[in-house]
């Protein structure tokens, strides 16, 4: 049976958790403009550095992984906002001009 890629990430996260890893799940909850991944796209992150799935075209995964580690440590979920970045600035954002919201939660 085939799986939608976004659903498969939860199975991977559950598998990692069952193996004793500390895991956080990030989900795109809203998008504006030409963001690369639709709402519902997921990424799973472990404290040990494993990563599956994606929430953008690679622009914000690093920042989301950092937030995931904080959420794993604190247990507090976060709703992150990523907006348009200035092409010449180094801050984290989406070069495509889109905006996304990403929800980060710990897998208990």
């Amino acid at each position: 049976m085939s799986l939608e890629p976004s659903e498969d990430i939860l199975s991977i996260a559950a598998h990692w958790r069952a193996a004793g890893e500390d895991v956080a799940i990030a989900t795109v909850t809203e998008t504006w403009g030409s963001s690369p991944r639709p709402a519902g796209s997921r990424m799973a992150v472990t404290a040990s550095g494993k990563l599956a799935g994606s929430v953008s075209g690679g622009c914000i995964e690093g920042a989301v992984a950092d937030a995931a580690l904080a959420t794993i440590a604190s247990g507090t979920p976060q709703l992150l906002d990523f907006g348009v970045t200035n092409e010449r600035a180094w801050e984290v954002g989406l070069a495509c001009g889109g905006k996304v919201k990403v929800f980060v939660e710990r897998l208990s």
Partner: protein
Amino acid sequence: MTPALIAALAEARAAARPVVLATSLPDGRQCLLPDPAADAALNAAAAAVLDADRAETRAIGGASWFLAPQNPPLRLIVVGAVHIAQALVPFAAATGFAVTIVDPRNAFATDARFPDTTLIGDWPDEAMRALAPDGRSAVVTLTHDPKLDDPALDHALRSQAFYIGALGSRKTHAARLRRLAELGHDAAALARIRGPVGLDIGAVSAPEIALSIIAELVAARRGAALGRLDGKQAA
């Protein structure tokens, strides 16, 4: 999120039961919908996102809810366990289709040729009756043999299948349409069949033809206006 919730989602998927994972933002409270115990507005919103098959954040009763639908997989019913079918299976699985292959010819429909794929060795009319394609099903015939393709197309045209495709040249297809018209299908019904099947990408090899079929399937599923993404005309 809890392992129990992920297990419940997996169970719903295995049972082909549509569900919505609802997450309250930003506190992260979660539940599965529909749920008779949940707020009526929340259940109504869940039904709407399942229908649209698209996740979204909605304001319900002064709270913000992220609703992620999980519909049963789309189905692709392929008639003809031929070489192009072999090429089609991996593309279809990767794009979210559960594939069933129908072919009564034992030499073609073997587990060795189609590992991890549902194979049905019945005649297409019998198989199609059992499979009962619905609005989340696509039907593609690949045998070139009217004895096999025609009964499958006849059934598909009497169903709500969102995509019906038939492999074969324009000449073959014109003859096929005449035969199906004799079975009582009018012009509007016959226009549902994409034949020759697939997008015109100049496909030659079996994987290329499979790619052109899958591309057309995705476009049909997403309701896309076909054309170049850069808006330019083809040369």
